[in-house]
C-alpha cells in the first residue's frame, strides 16, 4: 500500500504499524513527535496503530529556530 511520510510517498506492506513506519525516516529514540492525518499519536501507542492506504504521517523534531 502507499502511505505518505513527511510529504513523500512510500510503498509499504499492508497493515504496517506506525512504529515501523517511523523507522523508515529515523531511528532516533528521543526528541521526535508523530502525527497521523493531523492527529498527534503518543509514542507509547505507535506499535498499536495500524496504518491504512493513503495515511499521511508527519515525523517532527526540534531544529534551530526562533
Amino acid at each position, binding site marked *: 500500500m502507499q502511505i505518505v511520510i513527511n510529504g513523500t510517498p512510500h510503498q509499504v506492506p499492508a497493515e504496517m504499524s506506525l512504529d515501523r513506519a517511523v523507522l523508515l525516516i529515523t531511528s532516533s529514540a528521543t526528541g521526535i*513527535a508523530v502525527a497521523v492525518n493531523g492527529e498527534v499519536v*503518543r509514542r507509547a501507542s505507535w506499535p498499536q496503530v495500524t496504518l491504512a492506504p493513503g495515511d499521511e504521517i508527519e515525523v517532527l523534531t*526540534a531544529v*534551530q*529556530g*526562533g
Partner: protein
Amino acid sequence: MSDLLTDDPLVIAGEKFGSRLIMGTGGAPSLEVLGRALAASGTELTTVAMRRVAAGSSGSVLDVLAAQHIRVLPNTAGCFTAAEAVRTARLASEALGTNWVKLEVIADEVTLLPDSVELLDAAEQLVNDGFTVLPYTNDDPVLARRLEQAGCAAVMPLGAPIGSGLGIRNPHNIELMVQASSVPVILDAGIGTASDAAAAMELGCAAVLLATAVTRARDPELMATAMRSAVVAGRLAFLAGRIPRRRYAKASSPPLDS
C-alpha cells in the same frame, strides 16, 4: 547592590531563571558557533522550532542545549492559524516533554507580524489544555491584557519585526504594557544591538528574547557577551531609577560662591 547582580531571578509560571536573556537558535552558521554563543550569553532558556525530520541529518540543537543544561522552549514558528499552532504545540510537547510553548501565529511571510485574532484563539485553547503559554504578540497593550486574562504566563511584545534589528519602535506602548501587566513582559524580536536590549530592560521588561542579533552578528560569541552585559545593565538601571529628563542644564558641581 551585589545581591541584585547575582540574585534577581526571572520568574515565569513559578519557575526561576538566573538570566534575563532568553535566546533563540535560528540563524547560526553552525551548531558549534551556536553552542559558543549560548554559553557566552549565560541564557538558561532557549527556543527551538519544530520541523520535519530530514533524512540523514546529524547533530541536534537539542544536544547543544542539553550539554549546557539550558531549558528548551519550543515555538510554533511557521504557523498561520490557531489550529496549526495548537497542533504544533502538542507535537512539541510530545517530542520534548515540556508543556511550555512560545506561541507564534504569523499573519504573512512578508512582515512576520503576529495575527492577533488567531493568537488569542490559540492561547485560550492551549491554556485550557494545561500549557504554559508565552505568546509572541504585537506591541498592543490591549491585546496584552486579553492574553493575560486568557491565562498566559507572560506576554512577549515585538520591538520591531522579526530579524529586522530595528530596535524598539514604540517604547511608550512597551512601557504601558509593563505598567499594566501582572505577568512578565518579555521584549521579543527587533533587537539589533546591545543598546536595544538595555533599553528594553530600562523600560521595565522582565527579560529580552533575541536570536538574529547574535546569530547573524559578525562575531556571535562576542555579541552574546555584549547582550548578556546589556540585559544586566538595563535591569540594574531600571531598578536604580533614572533621573528625570530636563529641558535645561542642572549643575552637578556647587556654585562658586557657596
